[in-house]
């Protein structure tokens, strides 16, 4: 009998039923004939014939049960039935559905983030062939590539379809009433070839436009076209005004094209043949390439390394020191987000598992409470399969309700995620789509199976005892063992989750108490648009930034103002560079590796970094291309630098350092003089100890340095005044990236805090679920053993003994579970490594705290049913049973 026939039987079940009736009617008629022949009256014959066949309705039903698989026809019936029976226990149904809604919803939400960020390819054709190219320089964090080198890489390699590069800057667009900050990417030739994307309107850049002195052209994003240009159909005849230049728009990129980051709205061609672009030391572009079909990353790496080795022979200085680094673009973009997401997904899956086991335990208990009902069903002829089907139908119905609600929860959660996680990569791709719908459905069915299986199997096994009518007073142990195992598992998993959450909470606290070595409160930070074209006249750029600092300092409520080059203090960044000490004795080539910060002289006073020795550095005059004019730049070093590298000398002040690898300071080979020593500050991130640091005193290493403004009051109260003053001073520029420094630092650790918060929520939910499971199971045990309790009390047991007995039973399981949970947490301790600060992954205090917390919660959850047992009236219990 094929499933197909069964299925068609189900569909045509009316017909099948009629056929069975006809067959049975025939039998009755034949039998009646025979009885009549034996001399009975026709009526009597008919009655006896029917009687011998048994209840014809039941008979038809049983016959049909065989004919039609229960799973299909029975499903609809069972679901109807389950709905009725759940309707009679609305509290139970609601609890279970809500638990599942949260479990499935949270799980689906985290999965949708995981899917969008990690599993789905980047939104470009054949995105797995996109590769991030970096140059690797010894003892330098520099990864950006010189234009000439990038062009050579493109020309000489044989594994890439194309290699391209880009840089990003924030400029002001001034064709409207107000200048607007626009994030602009300047791109080398072949950008569209690498991305594999064509403009939605217009065209890409021509070869001419990529040439020095060639015609100007710009591509704009779909968003920019829509918002700023009102989706004007004549966009291709419009022009952008950036700085003094008026640039024709030649195309609009499709909405899905958001690169290098989602804020980029304008793309400009970069001229790689410009005379000023020929230095092999310049570091302009972030590289990206598209592999030829069938080429592996290893092959490409070997190929490009060979190319670079050739260049090293040809241009030993500086290419000898430069290597290549290749990584899949997706990996590069997603970065550390992957681990956070897997961690969250693990936690939320554990939570769902706990919810499932909890519901399984509830259903087992409910199944036992329903024994009389099931016994009646069995005696009325329901088959075992029918009973199991009924239990599964109930679970399925609950899971479906939970899944549907869970989808809503997931929808809300992903919207919240998009709104809150603005700094996270690919976060705008996190949506509930078909894949997520599918995932949610599959997990709902999985939930129904996982939580329904144990109760259904129980219902099947129950059966034997039922028929005999001794409704299981004596044989509860089997179900009880299962229930206790489920509860123990829940508690153990909760302990593990709580341990992880506890460790993260302690890290966040430790981080908040950190003394960073600078004063992070009361500082307003912002940036101002600028263009790299300004660096053509470096003295003017430095003068402009100096003017801005002076203006800021003159504002009422401002105590100090300064700039810092590439990043804010306390946010995770490192600018590792190497230096040589000019006064070094002996091995003059000894290399000193240190963090390099480029700041304006007022930086130390503004940030509250104390001057320990010597005097404050000064801004020296600057040559046309950023190189120091005359003597080198003034330098400051921190205490760690002086202690580690300059301890041979009587005083650090007056020594000279020469930059080894060239960073942003092009040709800074002229040694700088150390003017003073300052205190150690956690510049590289507040979670890292201060490292030896060299400060170069230059207010504008980039056209868009960070301004830091020390205020006497709330820094954000000053935003309006700063904006107004800046508009007077620089009407063509826009102010952006505005925020209080402490909030910016917090924001830099937002991902970790979000992880902590979510883990806390998940683990507390897990604990409360486990507590409910414990309470329910113990209550049920008490209910089952009423008679025994009554008997013991009648024989003189004291109430305290009864309480102790049940409390002990609950706590024994909890104790074992705690041990298991702690063991699991210790086994998984590597998972959190690197996310913790100031606390070890095996921190005893955290583990003890978690166990104590679980023990207290478990004790309360067990105490209630235990006390209830002790309050039983022995006489009544014994009479009733």
């Amino acid at each position: 009998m094929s499933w197909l026939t069964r299925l068609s039987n189900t569909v045509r079940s009316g017909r099948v039923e009629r056929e069975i009736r006809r067959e049975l009617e025939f039998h009755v008629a034949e039998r009646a004939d025979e009885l009549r022949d034996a001399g009975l009256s026709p009526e009597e014959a008919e009655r006896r014939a029917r009687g011998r066949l048994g209840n014809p309705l039941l008979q038809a039903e049983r016959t049909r049960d065989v004919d039609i698989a229960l799973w299909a026809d029975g499903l609809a019936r069972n679901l109807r039935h389950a709905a009725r029976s759940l309707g009679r226990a609305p509290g139970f149904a609601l609890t279970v559905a809500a638990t599942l809604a949260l479990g499935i919803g949270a799980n689906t939400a985290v999965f949708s983030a995981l899917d969008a960020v990690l599993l789905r390819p980047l939104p470009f054709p054949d995105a797995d062939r996109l590769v991030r190219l970096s140059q690797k320089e010894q003892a330098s964090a520099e990864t950006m590539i010189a234009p000439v080198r990038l062009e050579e890489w493109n020309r000489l390699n044989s594994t890439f379809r194309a290699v391209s590069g880009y840089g990003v800057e924030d400029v002001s667009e001034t064709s409207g009433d107000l200048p607007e900050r626009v994030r602009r990417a300047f791109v080398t030739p072949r950008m569209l070839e690498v991305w594999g994307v064509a403009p939605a309107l217009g065209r890409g850049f021509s070869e001419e436009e990529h040439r020095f002195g060639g015609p100007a052209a710009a591509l704009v994003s779909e968003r920019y076209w829509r918002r700023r240009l009102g989706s004007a159909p004549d966009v291709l005849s419009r022009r952008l005004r950036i700085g003094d230049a008026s640039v024709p728009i030649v195309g609009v990129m499709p909405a899905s094209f958001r690169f290098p980051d989602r804020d980029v709205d304008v793309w400009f061609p970069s001229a790689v043949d410009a005379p000023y672009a020929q230095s092999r030391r310049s570091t302009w572009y972030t590289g990206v390439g598209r592999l030829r079909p069938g080429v592996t990353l290893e092959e490409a790496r070997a190929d490009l390394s060979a190319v670079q080795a050739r260049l090293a022979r040809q241009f030993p200085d500086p290419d000898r020191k430069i290597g290549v680094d290749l990584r899949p673009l997706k990996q590069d973009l997603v970065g550390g987000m992957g681990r956070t997401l897997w961690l969250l997904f693990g936690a939320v899956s554990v939570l769902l598992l706990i919810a499932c086991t909890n519901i399984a335990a509830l259903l087992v208990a409910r199944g036992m409470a329903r024994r009389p009902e099931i016994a009646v069903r069995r005696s009325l002829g329901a088959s075992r399969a029918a009973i199991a089907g009924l239990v599964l139908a109930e679970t399925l119905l609950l899971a479906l309700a939970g899944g549907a609600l869970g989808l809503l929860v997931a929808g809300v959660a992903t919207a919240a995620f998009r709104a809150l996680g603005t700094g996270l990569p690919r976060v705008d791709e996190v949506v509930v789509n078909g894949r997520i719908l599918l995932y949610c459905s599959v997990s709902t069915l999985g939930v129904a199976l996982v939580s329904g299986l144990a109760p259904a199997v129980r219902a099947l096994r129950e059966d034997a005892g039922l028929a005999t009518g001794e409704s299981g007073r004596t044989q509860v142990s089997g179900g009880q063992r299962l229930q206790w195992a489920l509860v123990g598992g829940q508690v153990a998993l909760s302990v593990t989750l709580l341990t992880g959450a506890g460790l993260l909470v302690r890290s966040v606290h430790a981080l908040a108490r950190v003394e960073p070595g600078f004063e992070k409160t009361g500082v307003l930070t912002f940036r101002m648009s600028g263009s790299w074209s300004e660096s053509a006249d470096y003295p003017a750029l430095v003068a402009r930034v100096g003017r801005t600092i002076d203006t800021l300092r003159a504002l009422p409520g401002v105590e100090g103002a300064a700039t810092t080059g590439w990043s804010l203090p306390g946010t995770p960044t490192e600018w590792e560079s190497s230096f040589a000490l000019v006064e070094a004795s002996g091995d003059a080539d000894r290399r000193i590796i240190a963090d390099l910060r480029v700041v304006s002289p007022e930086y130390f006073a503004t940030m509250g970094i104390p001057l320990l020795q010597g005097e404050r550095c000064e801004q020296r005059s600057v040559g046309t291309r950023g190189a120091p004019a005359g003597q080198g730049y003034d330098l400051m070093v921190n205490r760690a630098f002086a202690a580690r590298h300059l301890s041979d000398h009587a005083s650090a002040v007056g020594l000279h350092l020469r930059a080894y690898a060239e960073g942003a300071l092009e040709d800074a080979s002229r040694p700088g003089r150390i003017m003073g020593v300052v205190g150690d500050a956690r510049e590289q991130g507040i979670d890292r100890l201060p490292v030896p640091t060299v400060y170069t005193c230059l207010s504008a290493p980039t056209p868009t340095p960070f301004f830091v403004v020390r205020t006497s009051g709330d820094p954000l109260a000053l935003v309006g005044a700063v904006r107004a003053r800046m508009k007077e001073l620089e009407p063509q520029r826009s102010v952006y990236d505005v925020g209080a420094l402490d909030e910016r630092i917090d924001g830099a650790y937002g991902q970790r805090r979000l992880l902590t918060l979510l883990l806390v929520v998940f683990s507390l939910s897990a604990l409360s679920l486990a507590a409910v499971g414990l309470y329910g199971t113990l209550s049920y045990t008490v209910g089952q053993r009423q008679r025994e309790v009554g008997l013991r009390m009648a024989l003189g047991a004291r109430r305290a003994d009864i309480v102790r007995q049940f409390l002990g039973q609950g706590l024994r399981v909890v104790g074992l579970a705690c041990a298991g949970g702690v063991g699991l947490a210790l086994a998984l301790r590597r998972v959190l490594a690197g996310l913790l600060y100031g606390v070890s992954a095996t921190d005893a205090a955290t583990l003890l705290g978690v166990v104590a917390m679980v023990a207290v919660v478990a004790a309360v959850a067990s105490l209630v049913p235990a006390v209830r047992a002790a309050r039983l009236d022995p006489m009544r219990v014994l009479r009733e049973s």
Partner: protein
Amino acid sequence: MSAPPPRNDVLQGTLSLLVLKTLAASRRLHGYAITSHIQRVSEDLLRVEEGSLYPALHRMEQLGLLRSEWGVTDKNREARFYSLTAKGRRQLAREEESWNRLTEGVGRVLRYA
């Protein structure tokens, strides 16, 4: 189920053997004829419980041991006729074999135990 059975009902499990054997002897029979045949051939020693016959027939049909079709009896009544499939024949051989072994074993025990 404590009272002794009022008549010699066919043991559960032997029913299918009896049905298979009956159908092997005749080409095709309806349910009523199967019960009558078993009763007659066993000289009233065995009596099929009519309530369990039809579920058994349908189960056997699902297992592919029997096939059925509607037809008309001599009395011009519509009835469902069952006949044996090849699979049913093989099943019969197996069940006969195991039945014989069972009776032989039980017989020996009764004789010598």
